[in-house]
């Protein structure tokens, strides 16, 4: 490997040096030419700065970059828009692959992870030499950048949560002003619900840790300060919220399945908590509501506290242009540019001074946000935060559903948080680690070679054809490099504690043997995922395969005209992007006005919460997955049906066979190879169930739709427990292997009967 690297470097050197010399000469010729022509020195190569920003900000940042470029001649800012979906993966692979930009936008809750990866540049020395006033940021915005008195980023923009409410409906309930504290808010909710028909008082999702935290903080609760949670405060908060659920002021199920904007319009949810982005969203998509709604600060508990969100700018350690990078960060964080950025994007400034601009201070819609910003809190700066947040969701859900008491929920949650935070102090020598890795790498390879060489060398049915190796070589080579080796690597990873600390620094990775595997069988979320995955496969595979075969036979029917149209129609669900599919299925499953509940209503059955009832959610996802995927197998069957010679049907028809006999004696036997392929592939596919729960339910409610692969993805790419995630993959692999072997055995048996 080392030798190969040297060789590669040598090539690179030769390549670049020749290219460089050509480039150099060319540049000189050009420069001299330019000098001669214009009579003044041409600019040197401009200094380039790469800046990544996500989504809408990624496009708009160009405008800020242009201002900076104008003020700093000779600097060129290359901006790149990163999609929010996939931003996490993009950033972490960039860090691993040494492809990180100079500067990137970073969500406030992601800061600790990338700091733990040792990817972020500490900024205190830059800040000390700068005119930037570090005291000018809102406390919540400052906190997400500070760790142990060291700055790791600068705030870019903030958002916080306030109440959005229907002023007209509140007035009908006798309230001209929004209630200011917890007790009044409860009374207000009661008044609201008795003044209207149907629906609820308030949208309170059971699976949103941010909303729970705001109430918890307002009640004086603390997180990860000494103990994971404050005893008593947690229970009080749950008790307060549970009253809303128990008295049907908020729905226990289906609250987050409905479309919030439409529910707001119909009065189903006259009150909800959301951020600044909702203002423009409501104004553009529900213009008919304008004037009937407004915002208010959250009702205070023992104190005020909202959730501080938003984004920071960070500088990567790998940046070779740190001084210039700092200059740009400083420019974006200063009050002048912060106010300008609000004008460009509508994002709220993190700088307090920037708020004195009239466009902000005089805007009545922003007043509630401004009030909350002073006391809004950022979640704790623990690198494991994303993982902890997920466990908070679980605990709150279990407690409000009444499955366990609030105290039991707190104790269970504390234990889980402590387990997540527990760090292994184990050390292993580098030689030991490299040796063990090599051994673990060679073992499977030797096993494979032995397996392939074992047994008789003779070939059944005649002489061996050496030419076969030429046919195999390209595909097998690619599979060896991009499939076999990665599989072995991830198998080795499954026996290590590879997590975010080891992402960028491999010396922190330690072998833990089978600890990950043992841990998985004590992990309730994984066990739930395993159970759901099995249910999903047992229900989904037979339905999907039978439906595909039936549809393929229908498409192949002699009497069918316009075959191309019907083929396309059945294949359309496969092609249509998941985003569009998810929106429409959400609408079909909508508990308030969805098509399924409409149909049930005609039959006199009460409406169901398809996606948030823990018995219905999984079957609902199976239905959707079958719909989305059956066309895939259908066209495989259609292709296979073309190879059955008509002569077979003709001869059996002469014997007086009917259609059913044709199917059993000709079609099915002739499809056996294809059917076998389809069954094996569909089983593998359904055991790796991922997209539907990922997009539709996130694994909830109460983990009833959590699948193994979804949990693996969350552990691997959200929490960066890569070792743990790999172990999951290999348990699933064992399961799939067992099923497939069984299928091959059955096929061998059946082979004899045909």
């Amino acid at each position, binding site marked *: 490997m080392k030798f190969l690297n040297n060789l590669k470097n040598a090539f690179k050197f030769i390549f670049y040096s020749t290219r460089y010399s050509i480039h150099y000469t060319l540049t000189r010729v050009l420069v001299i030419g330019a000098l001669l022509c214009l009579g003044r020195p041409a600019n040197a190569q401009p200094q380039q700065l790469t800046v990544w920003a996500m989504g809408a900000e990624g496009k708009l940042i160009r405008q800020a970059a242009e201002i900076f470029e104008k003020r700093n001649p000779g600097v060129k800012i290359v901006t790149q828009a990163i999609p929010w979906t996939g931003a996490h993966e993009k950033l972490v692979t960039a860090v691993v692959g040494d492809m990180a930009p100079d500067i990137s936008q970073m969500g406030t809750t992601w800061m600790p992870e990338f700091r733990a990866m040792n990817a972020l540049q500490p900024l205190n020395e830059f800040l000390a030499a700068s005119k930037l006033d570090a005291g000018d940021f809102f406390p919540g915005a400052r906190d997400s950048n500070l760790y142990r008195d060291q700055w790791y980023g600068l705030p870019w923009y903030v958002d916080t949560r306030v109440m959005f409410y229907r002023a007209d409906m509140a007035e009908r309930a006798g309230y001209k002003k929004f209630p200011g504290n917890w007790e009044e808010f409860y009374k207000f909710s009661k008044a609201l619900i008795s003044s209207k028909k149907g629906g609820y008082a308030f949208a309170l999702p059971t699976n949103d840790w941010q909303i729970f935290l705001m109430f918890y903080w307002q009640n004086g609760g603390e997180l990860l300060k000494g103990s994971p949670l404050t005893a008593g405060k947690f229970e009080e908060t749950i008790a307060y919220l549970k009253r809303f659920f128990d008295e049907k002021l908020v729905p226990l199920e289906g609250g987050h399945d409905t479309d919030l904007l439409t529910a707001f319009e119909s009065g189903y949810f006259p009150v909800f908590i959301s951020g600044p982005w909702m203002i423009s969203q409501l104004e553009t998509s529900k213009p008919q509501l304008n004037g009937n709604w407004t915002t208010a600060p959250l009702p205070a508990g023992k104190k005020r506290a909202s959730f501080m969100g938003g984004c920071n700018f960070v500088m990567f350690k790998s940046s070779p242009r740190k001084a210039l990078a700092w200059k740009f960060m400083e420019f974006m964080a200063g009050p002048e540019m912060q106010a300008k950025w609000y004008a460009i994007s509508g994002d709220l400034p993190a700088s307090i001074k920037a708020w004195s601009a009239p466009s902000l201070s005089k805007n009545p819609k922003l007043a509630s946000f401004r009030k909350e910003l002073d006391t809004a809190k950022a979640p704790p700066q623990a690198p494991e935060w994303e993982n902890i947040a997920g466990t908070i969701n679980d605990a709150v859900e279990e407690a409000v559903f009444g499955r366990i008491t609030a105290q039991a929920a707190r104790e269970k949650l504390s234990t889980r948080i402590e387990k997540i935070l527990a760090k292994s102090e184990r050390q292993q020598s580098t030689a030991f680690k490299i040796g063990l890795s090599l051994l673990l790498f060679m073992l499977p390879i030797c096993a494979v070679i032995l397996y392939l060489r074992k047994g008789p060398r003779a070939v059944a049915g005649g002489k061996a054809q050496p030419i076969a190796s030429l046919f195999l070589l390209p595909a097998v080579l690619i599979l060896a490099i991009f499939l076999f080796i990665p599989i072995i690597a991830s198998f080795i990873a499954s026996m290590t504690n590879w997590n975010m600390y080891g992402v960028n620094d491999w010396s922190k990775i330690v072998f833990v043997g089978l600890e990950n595997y043992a841990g998985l069988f004590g992990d309730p979320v994984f066990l739930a995922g395993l159970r759901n995955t099995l249910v999903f496969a047992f229900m989904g595979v037979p339905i999907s395969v039978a439906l595909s075969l039936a549809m393929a036979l229908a498409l192949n029917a002699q009497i069918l005209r316009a075959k191309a149209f019907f083929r*396309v129609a059945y294949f359309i669900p496969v*092609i249509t992007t998941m985003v569009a599919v998810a929106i429409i299925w959400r609408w079909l499953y909508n508990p308030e006005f969805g098509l399924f509940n409409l149909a049930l209503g005609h039959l006199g059955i009460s409406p169901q919460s398809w996606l948030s009832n823990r018995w219905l959610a999984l079957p609902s996802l199976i239905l959707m997955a079958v719909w989305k995927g059956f066309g895939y197998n259908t066209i495989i069957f259609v292709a296979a049906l073309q190879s059955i010679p008509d002569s077979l049907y003709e001869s059996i028809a002469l014997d007086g066979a009917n259609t059913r006999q044709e199917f059993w004696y000709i079609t099915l036997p002739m499809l056996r190879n294809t059917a076998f392929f389809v069954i094996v592939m569909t089983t593998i596919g359904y055991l790796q169930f991922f997209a539907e729960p990922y997009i539709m339910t996130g694994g909830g409610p109460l983990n009833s739709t959590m699948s193994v692969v979804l949990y693996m993805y969350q552990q691997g790419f959200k929490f960066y427990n890569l070792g743990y995630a790999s172990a999951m993959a290999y348990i699933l692999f064992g399961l799939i292997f067992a099923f497939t072997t069984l299928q091959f055995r059955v096929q061998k048996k059946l082979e004899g009967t045909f």
Partner: protein
Amino acid sequence: MKQKNNSKSMKAGRVSVTYKIAFYAFMVVSVVITLFPFVWMLSTSFKSPGEIFTKQPTILPQLWTLSGYKNLFAAVNMWLHLCNSVIYAVSVTALSVLLNAMAAYAFAKLRFPGREKLFALLLVTMMVPGQVTMLPVFLILKSMGLLNSYAGLVLPGSAAVFAIFMIRQFMMEIPEEILEAARIDGFSEFAIFWRIMLPLCRPIIATLTVFSFIGAWNDFLWPLIIMLREDKYTLPVALASINGQYNTDWGLLMAGAVVVVLPAVFIFLLAQKHYIKGIAAGAVKG
């Protein structure tokens, strides 16, 4: 050929009118169910923001607007990303069809020691969820210096076990006599593969073409993490990068979904023409 027509008319004659009506009713209902979201997507792309999320959505927009498409074309350099997507999808598809069909031919019709075992080994690799190999593949490409290159984008997806498996199953149905006859006529194995096997496998090759193309065409995560510059983004990546964290312009998003889906539908329309009955059967008869 004549004989086939006869058999068709003979069969069609057997079918009663009620059966025909029931059959078509079934087909129409199933098509409505499968096409519904597509039609909805198409119509939403022409709706104004106020009309998109309502209690009673209409099938056709009440007020037709092109603003979704206009915003889309203003927000991204459509032709550039379309070109990137075409390059990616076409090269993956071409390589995938060729390499996988070659390997499948060896597994289905050629004799070599360890054939069944090697095949079983390939099948086993398919059982490992792809998500765990993503990071190792990325690191391997890094060590090969292929990050941020088309080779790095295309190569890992150009051989696929499922494709080899699918074509092999199809090839196994093709009678051995055809190949033997060709060998006696002095055809080389490559000539047999290229001039006899591939044409006989047209339906399944068409299917694989569609699968590979659509897989690459809709692929999001891989092109995103491999490509380092925005001007190398494929269409789905470019479209996804327009959305805000919380704000989504649904009209634009649906317009984008339509633009992405149409080429895929077109490819499928082209491919499904190759589902022709009796290629193999005709060949046996000579």
